[in-house]
């Protein structure tokens, strides 16, 4: 862990709502090395976005509260920084790209200015210098006719173009970590591919680390070297990308992979039936005594409903939160 850039340790985040306390993130730990790329996968509401927003301390508060844990970035615990020091890290050392390019850019400010802002605030450039550098970046993310477009407003650009602007804005200060929260979810499939390859290229050139939040396993396979699978606020499996796809351990990961559409299938040309995971995610306001996936799990046995499983080491670099590690005979082969 000597090259470790980011280490999240036992992070818990709650939302205090009138309906009760919702534990959106519950004891999440994982790390990210310099230049590494990690994907966080899970369905809506599993806590992946909350985890990523916690890193920049952008959880809306109230109602959100970071209850416990440490987020170590380089040699500092981000959760203990005073607001001013935290602000200096945002956009300079750690940048973020959001899901909705339609709403994530300010509608009343020109894009050139929005891209230039981090340079002015973090590097003390003058407006003219910052705009010149912003233009270079917009050119690098392949915005055509940049000079003419600096004064354009977001509504004059397409969704893909706006996401390019977001990327340029996140990259201008040369961050060591880029957090991308569902960066392509809101885009057309053809544009998705363009944006992903743009991000891969920028990552290779700059050597920054990438934390990619997505529900799309295909995107993870393309972009990440390691994967963290989250379910109902917890990490349920963590593995290198190849291991996760070849030898997934957790029943939830199995389910995710099976519910991914694929062409051809394994059985020689026949298309496999797409299988969904039965049941629904438990409400995060309820506290369950056992495993949170128990009610949807095809391999469930009595122990799963009584005790919460810990994260067990499966093999080098792979952990899973499942009792099947110690009771392999309980795995049903027909499921």
């Amino acid at each position, binding site marked *: 862990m000597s090259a470790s850039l980011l280490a999240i340790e036992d992070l818990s985040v709650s939302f205090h709502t009138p309906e009760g306390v919702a534990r959106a993130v519950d004891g999440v730990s994982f790390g990210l090395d310099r230049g590494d790329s990690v994907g966080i996968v899970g369905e809506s509401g599993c806590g992946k976005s909350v985890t990523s927003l916690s890193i920049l301390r952008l959880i809306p508060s109230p109602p959100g509260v970071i209850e416990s844990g440490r987020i170590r970035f380089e040699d500092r615990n981000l959760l203990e920084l005073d607001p001013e020091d935290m602000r200096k890290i945002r956009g300079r050392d750690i*940048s973020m790209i959001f899901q*909705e390019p339609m709403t994530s*850019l300010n509608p*009343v400010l020109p894009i050139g200015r929005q891209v230039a*802002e981090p340079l002015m605030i973090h590097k003390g450039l003058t407006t003219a210098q910052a705009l010149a550098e912003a233009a270079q970046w917009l050119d690098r993310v392949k915005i055509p006719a940049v000079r003419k477009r600096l004064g354009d407003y977001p509504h004059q650009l397409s969704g893909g173009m706006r996401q390019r602007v977001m990327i340029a804005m996140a990259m201008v200060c040369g961050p060591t970590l880029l957090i991308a929260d569902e960066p392509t979810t809101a885009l057309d499939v053809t544009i998705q591919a363009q944006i992903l390859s743009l991000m891969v290229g920028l990552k290779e050139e700059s050597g920054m680390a990438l934390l990619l939040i997505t529900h799309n396993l295909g995107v993870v396979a393309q972009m990440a070297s390691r994967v963290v699978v989250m379910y109902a606020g917890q990490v349920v499996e963590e593995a290198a990308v190849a291991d996760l796809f070849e030898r997934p351990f957790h029943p939830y990961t199995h389910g995710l992979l099976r519910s991914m559409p694929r062409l051809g299938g394994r059985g020689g040309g026949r298309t496999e039936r797409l299988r969904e995971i039965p049941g629904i995610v438990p409400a995060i306001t309820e506290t369950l005594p056992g495993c949170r996936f128990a009610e949807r799990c095809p391999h469930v046995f009595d122990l799963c409903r009584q005790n919460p499983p810990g994260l067990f080491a499966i093999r080098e670099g792979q952990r899973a939160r499942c009792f099947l590690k110690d009771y392999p005979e309980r795995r049903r082969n027909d499921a």
Partner: protein
Amino acid sequence: MLRYLTQKLITLALLLFLVSITVFSVLFVLPGDPAQIILGVNATPESLATLRADLGLDKSFMGQYGDWVAHLLTGQSQPSIHYKMPVSELILSRLTVTGPMALLAMLFAVAISLPFGIYAARNQNRPGDVTVMFFTQLGLATPEFWFGILLILLFSVQLGWFSAGGFPGWRVDFWGSLRALLLPAFALGVIRASILTRLTRSSMLEVLGEDYVRTARAKGLTERTVVYVHALRNALIPVLTIMGLQLGQLLAGAIIIENVYFLPGLGRLVFSAIGQRDLPVVRDIVLFMAAAVMLVNFVVDLAYAFVDPRIKLK
């Protein structure tokens, strides 16, 4: 832009035409004979008839309406029955009181409502916000004439900083005239600030929850830049609408406040003109007020386009 302007001008002309017909009809059926009011109850039928003929009151509805419009179109408004001078001159002289007072009142309203509205939004549901909301509620429930009287009691009677009313005239005493407008403008402004503060707060709260505000924070901008540059401009758009309506209203004259402070403004002019059945004055002022409101709305439209680039003037 040129097309937009011509369109606006045509609408303005059409609306003024409709307003003129409405006003004229209403005043035409209004009971009370101007000639009788001028000459008193003891006037002989002959002198009443002569005066009616002089004033053109013996003509038909269309005839009288035609007289009025002809005067307006040639730019010479009819003379006031009571003041014996052209109504246009009358309106202009009163506007030198009402206009500056309206602008001053809006200045107070904006200077109070923006800081407090933003403050309340940033401290939602905390004591500061609750306090601000309490005072805006109070402001909404306070009649402005009563607040105006309270101001006189405090600043004129107790402290002696301002005179209790009257207006010396701009040519006679410029600073004195400005001083005479301060208290009434403040009374008007504070009451209008109540609604604007609430509006700014709710608009700001909505904008502070937007994705682009989160983006601005994620860039590492200072809280000040996030609030005053990224959020405020977006939050102002709905606030501008109400500001425009308020300014239009104020330009039409504040009848009660002008009476409390003995100001020779438009409001008092139209008020007394109605009592005196000075029909040319009433007609022209109502028409002027309609034009003023439309003009302010036009300026608000221009301001929208300036604040929000998504709005194109077409």
